[in-house]
């Protein structure tokens, strides 16, 4: 079985890797590249713990082959914070205690970032609908929704 060579961009950095043709992007990120912030929950696209952005679009990295990353821009949880500290979404998750065990949190943060990139001023309904593909068994979601709405408001005011 021969590994395939892939050139891609991850969090702004040009990256090259070798992977098996049937290896998921999730496994490549975690096992080949050491980017273990992206989590595996279900590996069937149901839980959203493995959420990443591909060319700005939110996807499950468990449902994508590593080889499909050729030539695209991948954004993982490791790319959300800026050089000068946490992203406002991350700060609001902390402020609102929008996490408990934390396994779902990277996926929620990436999904929340994708939402605000796509729709900077979402309604509560839009937040809940957008995040419906991310499962959390601890928080009951309410704190997460409040954190995202608060982050949106802050982004909106500073814009």
């Amino acid at each position, binding site marked *: *079985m021969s590994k395939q060579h892939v050139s891609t961009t991850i969090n702004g950095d040009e990256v090259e890797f070798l992977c098996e043709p049937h290896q998921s992007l999730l496994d490549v990120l975690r096992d080949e590249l050491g980017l273990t912030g992206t989590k595996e929950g279900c590996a069937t*696209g149901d839980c959203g713990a493995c959420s990443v952005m591909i060319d700005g*679009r*939110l996807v499950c990295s468990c*449902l994508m*082959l590593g080889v499909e990353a050729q030539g695209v821009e991948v954004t993982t949880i490791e790319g959300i914070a800026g050089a000068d500290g946490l992203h406002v979404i991350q700060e609001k998750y902390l402020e609102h205690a929008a996490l408990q065990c934390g396994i779902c949190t990277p996926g929620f943060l990436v999904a929340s970032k994708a939402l605000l990139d796509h729709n900077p001023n979402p309604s509560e309904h839009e937040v809940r609908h957008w995040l419906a*593909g*991310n499962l959390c068994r601890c928080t009951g979601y309410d704190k997460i929704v409040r954190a995202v709405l608060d982050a949106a408001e802050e982004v909106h005011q500073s814009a």
Partner: protein
Amino acid sequence: MGAYAYRAPSSVEEALSTLAAEAAAGNRAQMLAGGTDVMVQMRSIDKGPRTFVDVKHVAEANALHIGDDEVFIGAGIASAVLNENDELKSILPGLIEAADLIGSTQIQGRATIGGNLCNSSPAGDTIPALIACGAVCEIASPGGNREVPTEDFVTGVGTNVLEPTEFLIGLKIPRPKGRSSDAYLRFIPRTEMDIAVCGAGVALTLDDSGVCTAAKVSIGAVAITALVVPDAAAALVGTTVDDDALAAAADASSALAKPITDKRGTVEYRRKVVGVLTKRAGAIARDRALAL
């Protein structure tokens, strides 16, 4: 013993020669669009080596055209791209709402209508919607492209007319003219992200006085493939799509349905509900057409 491999051809010709070469070598080839079914199946019910042939880099399959007479949706176009296209949503609202029903934001970012059709599940939500709006499959074949109406594409549970050396390039849909619209409804026990208990797609055209001049009705998840319901369409044509006509269309759908009993619903329940969905989808399509 084959191995896993991945190819990303950039043209129909290159994709066809890749499929032919894999077939000649005795390897299994599988087209890959969004991967949201393929990846799950590869880890569960359909393990084993194969060559993935990625349709997303085939230029013709990566196209979305909204022409005066025809809409073309390439097999590699993600559902989210369709949902974000306001023109498409206004001319084919039923088809786009069927696509939008499938999965979460993450799934929408990868999943395709072409993949939903090729997965050929009896419960695929876009299939009745495609059939209702008269979509035709454009299939790349070693002898040249061939066209197959969507109602003839799926042949059984998970099976379709594609040969191992063929693939779906995309879907050609006649652009609705005048007061024409469509609607798709499905029933699930939750509000989002579930597999249809049953579904119904209705496309219709009204004349200036609101009388239906053409209609097509298709129902899903009530037989091994989505069904066309000619009697339901006939019940609507020549009427103003009033309550009596919709009730007759509902009865026609219920009568044609051949559902099974499983954990999602019983035969009796599905037969009843598919009629209700036909009636409601017909009313939505009518109201949309009247608003044009």
